[in-house]
């Protein structure tokens, strides 16, 4: 006949700890807001109760409290997992595409604001509408193109190391002159 060791409290402390964690975890796992904390406590409860159960079994001690802790912790863990899966299912139903459309709309709106501000500032700087300035610029470019076409000049450049150096220097100077011209124009406007 199997004899129960009634005097040993082996595993009882762990069993009580597991039971308390399970009981605390049960309402926490039921509430949607605290289901994660509930799951953590329930897992701890299951772990402690399991260790307590194995200790109690080794010395043939009472296992009722440890067993109660194990059962309640497992129930709490299952509730928490159900609750979490419920939240995750609802998250998939969450209208992410609607949010992305809203963000796109916001970006479009901001771009329009930038365009309008740029146009306003440009017109006030040059004293005419943007369309008018662009039209004039286009006309001038066409005129230059025609003038260049009418010139019947053949330009021959013999590219060697010396000429390439000269060309590079000339291009750099031209860019510098152009920048200075633009800066002067902007400063005069101000």
């Amino acid at each position, binding site marked *: 006949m199997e004899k129960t060791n*009634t005097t040993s409290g082996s595993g009882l402390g762990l069993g009580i700890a597991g*039971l308390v964690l399970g009981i605390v975890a*049960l309402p926490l796992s039921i509430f949607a*807001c605290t*289901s994660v904390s509930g799951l953590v406590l329930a897992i701890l409860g299951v772990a402690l109760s399991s260790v307590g159960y194995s200790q109690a079994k080794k010395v043939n001690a009472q296992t009722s*409290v440890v067993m109660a802790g194990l059962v309640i912790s497992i129930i709490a863990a299952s509730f928490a997992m159900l609750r979490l*899966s*419920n939240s*995750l299912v609802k*998250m998939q139903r969450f209208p992410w595409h609607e949010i992305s459309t809203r963000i796109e709309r916001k970006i479009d709106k901001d771009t329009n604001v930038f365009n309008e501000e740029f146009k306003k500032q440009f017109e006030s700087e040059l004293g005419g509408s943007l369309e008018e300035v662009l039209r004039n610029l286009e006309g001038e470019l066409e005129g230059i193109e025609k003038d260049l076409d009418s010139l019947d000049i053949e330009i021959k450049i013999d590219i060697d190391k010396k000429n390439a150096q000269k060309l590079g220097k000339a291009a750099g100077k031209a860019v510098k002159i152009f920048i200075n011209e633009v800066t002067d124009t902007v400063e005069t406007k101000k």
Partner: protein
Amino acid sequence: MKNLFSLVKAYTNLNLILAGVVLCIFIYSALYSYKGNNYPIHSFHDTLTGEKSASTGLSRSFSAIVRFDFTQARLFNSYGVGLFLFFITQLFLRLFFIYFATKNYHPFKIVLISDIVISTSLFVVFFKPFISEIFCF
């Protein structure tokens, strides 16, 4: 006899711990104000789904109850008052059962069974809306 003694001792310790947990809930509700909304625990479900759940506003509701603002408590969460009542009942039940278990007026088994029946029934009654919400996928 020693076995019964260790069980009663374990039961008493357990009840004391649970009473302490319930007291912690009341202290938590008193420490954080619903006006400041400075709670350290944020709703996981609300963050994840953007939806309100049955437990949304429960902490604020408990804080309002602790400050005897029952109208505001109902507005924050309609189940808040019922749940708070459950926790108060549990606090008194723990003290009540500690008394009965240690005084040996009744056999320990009867005290234990009546505790299990009363606590489980109260839990099911007060947590019914939250339990049913778990299974609503």
